[in-house]
């Protein structure tokens, strides 16, 4: 019943102040939004949760003016992108004033501890998985913001380049170029794991 209602229909109901429709929309897209914010911000926990909530609150407030001109997920990820980029710019400005953030390493640790360990892993396997997880997280975090977003949308959201272009506001060529550069960087940084997996 719930799955039959499209995102666009839900937005129409949200426009009339329907909280139940809003709850369904959140539950449908929360992992997508939370995961993207987590990857972009480079961590998890209260900050990621707050930004992800901001995204949905913005969706609620924009429902009155929302027009289904593009796919809902494209519009949603554009909202995510705008909010994340604004937040990271604010954070960068704060760092310029305050100096390096002393809790950076701690934040990195919390990323590692947040992802649940799939059941049935031996401690040794879990340790090597955590090492790989850390390496991938760090390699992604070191990518420039736009490259990181392109990689995430392509790899984890399965989006086409055209769609990614709409979200990032870039041409198809620019998106592919970003992907190429990201691939080269990731290959270098993760070469150890790539050769190990062969």
């Amino acid at each position, binding site marked *: 019943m719930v799955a039959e209602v499209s995102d666009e229909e839900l937005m129409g109901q949200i426009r*009339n*102040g*329907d*909280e*139940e429709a*809003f*709850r369904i929309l*959140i*539950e449908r897209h*929360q*992992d*997508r*939004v*939370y*995961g*993207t914010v*987590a*990857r972009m911000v480079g961590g*998890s926990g209260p900050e*990621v*949760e707050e930004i*992800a*909530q901001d995204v*949905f*609150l913005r969706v*609620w407030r924009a429902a009155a003016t929302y027009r289904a001109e593009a796919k809902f997920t494209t519009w949603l990820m554009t909202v995510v992108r705008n909010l994340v980029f604004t937040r990271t710019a604010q954070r960068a400005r704060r760092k310029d004033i305050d100096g390096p953030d002393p809790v950076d390493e701690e934040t990195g640790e919390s*990323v590692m501890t*947040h*992802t649940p360990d799939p059941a049935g892993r031996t401690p040794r396997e879990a340790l090597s*998985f955590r090492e*790989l*997880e850390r390496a*991938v*997280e760090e390699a992604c975090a070191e990518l420039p913001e736009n490259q990181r977003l392109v*990689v*995430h949308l*392509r*790899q*984890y*959201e*399965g989006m*086409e*380049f055209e769609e990614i272009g709409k979200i990032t506001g870039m041409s198809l060529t620019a998106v*592919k170029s970003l*992907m*190429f550069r*990201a*691939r080269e960087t*990731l*290959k270098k940084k*993760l070469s150890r*794991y*790539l050769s190990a*997996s*062969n």
Partner: protein
Amino acid sequence: MEMKRSKGSEQEGLGPELEGLLAKVPPPRAPAWFAAKTLARLRKEEGVAMGKPIWLAGWRWVWAAGAAALMAGWMLWERPKTSLEISDAEVFAALDALVQQDEDNRWWAGL
């Protein structure tokens, strides 16, 4: 999360090797309480009544006050208009009538 790929996109994407590696490390999922917390924050920030449209919730006091004013006006308009005041002339006329009646009663009684 879905992972769709068009034909021949391998050269433009990360490549099968990197894709396989990154697929082993999916991004974190939203905590179980995420939707409930977001809705609670929405209610706190917007003051929305559950299940009520925003415009109706915001204007309900105006509607209630308008309806009460209309009801009060109608009741004032429809109240009984008969006066309870009695003039002096009416009192004296009634007393005269009583005295006259008393005299008539006495005459008939032969008093």
